[in-house]
C-alpha cells in the first residue's frame, strides 16, 4: 500500500474542515465514540447539519469556541488502495506560515473555493504558495455547489478564472472538481446532481494520482546525521555514517565525493536495517561506509563523483518570514538544512513576490510575518545545496533566530 500526503487550503468559510470531515466520515474512518462526541457537540454549534463534520478537525478549545482553525492539524485515513495523511491548514492570512508548514511535506494540494464567491485573494495566495513549494499536483475543489443550484456555468467560470491566474504560476497539473462537502456530492462517491460533470470524485482522484514523477533519475544525495562508532572489541574499527538518502540512489563500490572537503573515496559498504545491501535509494535510512579513513561529521554530504552539489557561502533564496517580529537588519540567524547548521545573516533584501502576478517587486523593507521575498543570504560555513526545484530537501532550509531559538523563516534556494 502506498502513502499519499496532501494538504488542504481555503478561506475561513470555504468548508475545508467539512470536506475533510466528509472524507473521513464517508470512508468510514471515524470511530463510533468520536461520532457520539460530535453529535453531542453539534447540537450546540451546528444549525443546519446533523453532524458538524468540521468539529472533527478543530481540535483545540480556542478553535472550538471561535469556530475557526488556528493551527495545522494532521488527520489520517486509509482505503484499500492508499494510506492518506492530511495536513489541514488554516485559511487566515495571518496563518500563511502554517500553510507553508503543511505544504512542505505534501505531495499534493487541495485548494477550496466557495462557488458563490469565486477566486479570492486567499485563493491566489494559496496557489502561489503551492506553486512556490513545487507541488506536483493541485486539486481545486469548487465547494458549496448545492448553494448555486449545481450550476455548470458557475463551475466553468471559476475553473477558467483560475487557469488564467495559474498561467503565471508554474503548476504542473491542475484538476477541478465541483463538490458539496456538506451534502457529500463528488467527495467520496460521484454525485447524481451534476450529470454534466464526467470526472472523478475527490477520493477517486486521491487514490489514483501518480506519486512519482517521470523525471530523469535524480543524482544521489546524502547528508551525515550521526556517526556510529561502537568501539567494542567486536566492532573495533566500525565507523558508519548514518543518515537518510535525500535524493537518487547509491551503490556499493561507487566513487563518491565528500562535501565540503571535496575529497574522493569509494563506498565500501551500505547497510539498511543492519544488513549489508548492494544499493539503496531515496528515502531510505542507511549507514554508509567509506573505503578510506576520512574525517566526516554531522552535516557533511556524500555525493556521486560527477554529480556534485553547489557549494557557496552566498545564497539567493525565496523566503517566507514566519516570526511574529519582523526581520531586524543585522539579526543573528542560524541556517539549518537537514542536519547541517551554520551562522548566517540576510545580506540584502531584493524584492517581494507579489501574490497577484507572481512577479518580483523591488523592495528593501524588512520582511514581516507572512511576507514572501527574495533575499541574499551570507553564511559562515559553506552550504552544500541544490536548487529547490531540483531537490526539495537539499534545496530548502530554515532560518533560526539565535537569540529566541524560534524558526523565523522557511527558505527555498534559487
Amino acid at each position, binding site marked *: 500500500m*502506498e502513502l499519499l500526503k496532501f494538504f488542504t487550503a481555503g478561506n475561513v468559510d470555504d468548508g475545508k474542515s467539512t470536506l475533510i470531515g466528509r472524507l473521513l466520515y464517508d470512508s468510514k474512518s471515524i470511530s463510533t465514540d468520536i461520532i457520539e462526541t460530535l453529535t453531542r457537540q453539534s447540537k450546540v454549534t451546528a444549525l443546519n447539519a446533523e453532524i458538524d463534520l468540521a468539529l472533527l478537525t478543530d481540535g483545540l478549545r*480556542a478553535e472550538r469556541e471561535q469556530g475557526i482553525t488556528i493551527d495545522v*492539524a494532521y*488527520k489520517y485515513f486509509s482505503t484499500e488502495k492508499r494510506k492518506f495523511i492530511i495536513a489541514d491548514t488554516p485559511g487566515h492570512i495571518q496563518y500563511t506560515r502554517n500553510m507553508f508548514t503543511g505544504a512542505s511535506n505534501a505531495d499534493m494540494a487541495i485548494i477550496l473555493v466557495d462557488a458563490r464567491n469565486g477566486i479570492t485573494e486567499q485563493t491566489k495566495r494559496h496557489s502561489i504558495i503551492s506553486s512556490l513549494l513545487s507541488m506536483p499536483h493541485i486539486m481545486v475543489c469548487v465547494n458549496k455547489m448545492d448553494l448555486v443550484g449545481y450550476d455548470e456555468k458557475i463551475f466553468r467560470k471559476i475553473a477558467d478564472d483560475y487557469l488564467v491566474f495559474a498561467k503565471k504560476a508554474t503548476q504542473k497539473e491542475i484538476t477541478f472538481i465541483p463538490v458539496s462537502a456538506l451534502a457529500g456530492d463528488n467527495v467520496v462517491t460521484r454525485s447524481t446532481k451534476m450529470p454534466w460533470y464526467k470526472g472523478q470524485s475527490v477520493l477517486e482522484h486521491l487514490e489514483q494520482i501518480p506519486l512519482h514523477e517521470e523525471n530523469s533519475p535524480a543524482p544521489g544525495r546524502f547528508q551525515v546525521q550521526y556517526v556510529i562508532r561502537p568501539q567494542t572489541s567486536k566492532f573495533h574499527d566500525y565507523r*558508519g555514517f548514518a543518515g537518510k538518502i535525500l535524493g537518487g540512489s547509491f551503490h556499493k563500490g561507487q566513487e563518491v565525493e565528500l562535501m565540503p572537503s571535496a575529497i574522493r573515496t569509494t563506498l565500501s559498504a551500505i547497510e539498511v536495517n543492519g544488513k549489508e545491501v548492494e544499493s539503496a535509494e531515496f528515502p531510505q535510512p542507511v549507514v554508509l561506509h567509506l573505503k578510506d579513513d576520512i574525517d566526516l561529521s554531522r552535516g557533511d554530504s556524500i555525493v556521486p563523483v560527477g554529480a556534485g552539489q553547489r557549494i557557496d557561502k552566498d545564497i539567493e533564496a525565496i523566503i517566507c518570514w*514566519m516570526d511574529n517580529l519582523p526581520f531586524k537588519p543585522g539579526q543573528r540567524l542560524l541556517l539549518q538544512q537537514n542536519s547541517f547548521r551554520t551562522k548566517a545573516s540576510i545580506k540584502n533584501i531584493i524584492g517581494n513576490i507579489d501574490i497577484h502576478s507572481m512577479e518580483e517587486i523591488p523592495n528593501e523593507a524588512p520582511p514581516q510575518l507572512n511576507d514572501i521575498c527574495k533575499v541574499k543570504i551570507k553564511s559562515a560555513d559553506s552550504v552544500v545545496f541544490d536548487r529547490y526545484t531540483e531537490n526539495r530537501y537539499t534545496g530548502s532550509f530554515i532560518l533560526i533566530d539565535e537569540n529566541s*531559538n*524560534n524558526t523565523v523563516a522557511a527558505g527555498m534556494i534559487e
Partner: protein
Amino acid sequence: MEKTFDYLDQLEAEAIYIMREVAGQFDNPALLFSGGKDSICLVHLALKAFRPGKFPFPLVHIDTGHNFPEALDFRDKLTEHIGERLIVRKVEDTIRDRKLQDAKGKFPSRNMLQTYTLLDTIEEFKFDACIGGARRDEEKARAKERIFSVRDEFGQWNPKMQRPELWNHYNGKISSGENVRVFPISNWTELDVWNYILREEIGLPNIYFTHERECVTTENGQLMANSSFLNLEKEDTILRKQVRYRTVGDMTCTAAVESQAYTVEDIIAELKEVKISERGATRMDDRISEAAMEDRKKGGYF
C-alpha cells in the same frame, strides 16, 4: 526502474530519521519507555537507527506503582536482552518526598501525579530531549502537536507558540531549562503500529492478547482489571471475562476490551471491525472533558 516504497517503510524511515536527529542535536536525550506497544516500537526503531552502536540515550520509565506486572516484567526482560540502560523513577517516591495527596476513589488514577515524577526526573538528569511514543491519531489536541515539541521549564506546551516544522529541518534549539518532547511515530495510526508489529515480528507483553481475567464494571460499562489498587465496594461484582488490552497504562485507568484475539493477525482483523477509538475504548482519563488532553499537555503531561 520505478520502485514504490510501502507506507510502513516510509513511516519507519521518517521515525529513524527523527531519532537520529535527536542523537545529533541534543546533549542528553532520553527515551520514555512505558512497556506499552508504542514505546516497544520506539525501541525497535532505535535498534534500527543505532546498531551496532549503543543507544545514545537511556530508557526512562516513570513507574506509577499501578502498572500491570506483565508490562514491568516485559520491560526488564527487553532492556536486559538489548543491553541498554534503564532508569526507573517511582511516583510513590514523589508522593512521599513532595508530601502529595495520593489519588483517591474506586479507580485511583495517578495520571496527574505522574507529571510531577516526569518533570522531577527531567530535572534530575538534565534531560534536554525526551522521545515519546505519542501519536497524532490518538486525540484531537495531539493532532496539532509538532514532532519536536518545545516545553518550557515547567514542562508546559503552548499550542499557539509552536515552531513551524518544515521539510526535514527539525529545529531542536533550546535555552537552558527548556526541553523538547520528540514524537517519532506521530504520523502512525493504531492500525499502522499493529501492521508494523506484525511485519517486524515485534514481541509484546501478553496482556495485549486475549486472556481470562477478573474484571469489575465501571459506571460507563468499561471493564477494569481487578487488582489490589482498586478500592472496591460491597456491591461490586467480580466477573471473569475473556479480554485483552488495546493500550497499556495503569491498571486503575486502562480498561480491557472483550476479545478473542490470540495473535497479531487476529488483533488487526478485530481493529478493522471495531469502530471505537483506542483512547475512547480504554482511557477513563480522557473522558473528563472534551479538552482533557489539551489541559494535561499544557500542564507538562506527555
